[in-house]
């Protein structure tokens, strides 16, 4: 009897974990996602990323173990939820994807033309090394709260410009990021849309990397930004550009205090 009660409590606990307690349609509207949440294929990507991270590679025969993600060389725990941030050695605000590329260049000696840097996104036939490493580093912040620093003036200006970009309507359809992400409980077709002012939804929504069921591969923050500008019929945004980092800075700031799910599973 006691055993049954305990089992029941454990089951209820696992179901109530995270999203189930919410009334947000974005978080609870897709049963398929909730059912798969404990078997996220992104874990395979994460394990491969861990190997690549520690592997000695590139013209300089080095691993990425000395890469500084903002908390000191080699410190991964909690680094991602404190990005984007100002990096004195690069003299700019960087997101995690840009920072990994920076370290692949400075520590390992790879160039923009080399496959580990040139291949930014995965396809169904080939997973990008960058995505795998990103997934591994990000996973070291799983369950932590988003908390990007705003001490440097460029961190604040970048976030504030990101807010302007988020609301800036342009292009053939007059869209801005805000078009889809400011009104609660809305859908595009059958996809529920997360709202930037709802920390519970937003902290999950910006939890990239995520295995995207519809794509069959793991996707990143930069990939999401590119997709949004594409669907808005605006100009193609460049990977790792200052504008893309401004958007990511603003969206991470909006998730401040909310819990990161890393890696995540998305539609």
């Amino acid at each position: 009897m006691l055993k049954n009660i305990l089992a029941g409590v454990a089951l209820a606990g696992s179901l109530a974990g995270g999203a189930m307690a919410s009334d947000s349609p974005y978080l609870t509207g897709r049963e398929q996602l909730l059912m798969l949440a404990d078997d996220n294929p992104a874990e395979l990507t994460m394990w491969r990323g861990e190997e690549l991270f520690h592997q000695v590679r590139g013209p300089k025969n080095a691993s990425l173990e000395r890469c500084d993600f903002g908390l000191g060389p080699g410190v991964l725990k909690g680094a991602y939820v404190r990005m984007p941030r100002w990096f004195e050695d690069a003299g700019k605000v960087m997101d995690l994807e840009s920072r990994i590329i920076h370290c692949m260049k400075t520590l390992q000696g790879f160039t923009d033309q080399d496959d580990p840097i040139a291949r930014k996104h995965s396809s169904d036939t080939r997973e990008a090394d960058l995505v795998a490493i990103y997934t591994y580093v990000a996973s070291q912040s799983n369950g932590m709260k988003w908390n990007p620093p705003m001490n440097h003036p460029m961190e604040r200006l970048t976030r504030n410009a990101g807010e302007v970009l988020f609301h800036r309507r342009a292009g053939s359809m007059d869209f801005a990021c805000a078009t889809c992400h400011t009104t609660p409980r809305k859908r595009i077709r059958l996809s529920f849309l997360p709202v930037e002012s709802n920390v519970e939804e937003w902290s999950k929504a910006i939890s990239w990397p995520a295995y995207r069921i519809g794509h069959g591969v793991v996707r990143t923050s930069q990939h999401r930004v590119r997709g949004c500008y594409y669907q808005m019929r605006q100009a193609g945004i460049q990977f790792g550009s200052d504008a893309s980092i401004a958007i990511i800075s603003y969206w991470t700031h909006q998730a401040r205090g909310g819990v990161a799910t890393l890696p995540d599973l998305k539609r």
Partner: protein
Amino acid sequence: MNKQNSIAGYALITVGVALISAALIAGCAQPRPDTQAERDFSHMSPEAYAEYLIFRSGSFNLDQATQEGTTAADRMVQDPLQRMCSEARNRPQPELAVRIVGAARDSIVYPEGGIKLGDWRQGAELARSGTGFRIGHNVDDHSRPVGGNCYACHQLDPDELGFGNLGPSLAAYGALRGDSEAVRKFVYDMIYNPHSYFPCTQMPRFGVSEFLTQESISHIMAYLLDPESPVNSRHAR
């Protein structure tokens, strides 16, 4: 402010924006963008830095050709409506709202010979299709018809389950409202420039932007208003 003045004011703003836009486009011909390390941006407002990011930082592929024969830079330049609604966060004060509605009404061009309904079957295709005018990493081929993607935001045929709800349901639209000239004009206006009724609405201006052709608009209107269209015929069952 009377209507004449508000239109004059609107025109002035348009000229001003066009000049600024020209300056910005000229600016992006610079050989190499400044980097954060080389330049002090701290004096800049967020708005000015955002404009810098779009037009001069190399963040966007501005030189890419568009389907309408311009470059991507032109897509990024805001017209007066886009700018005013962005700044107002889509909640314009009454005076601005009146100006926007007035300018939107003036923007509408009606087909010669009146508003006619096309073929609802083609309208059904166009209402479902989300293809058209995308550039960037996978340019839409306009040898396929450009769709209105109505289902992204609206319910139409009640048997179609894949519909969004950013906009109101349009199921049984014609069955409930009929097909009078007033209804046709309202539907046409809403597709052509919905700011003529809802200033700073999220809905695109499918006519102003020439996103949809006159012919496509007539097909989509038939899909909404023709009694034979599944949008309406299923209502009677």
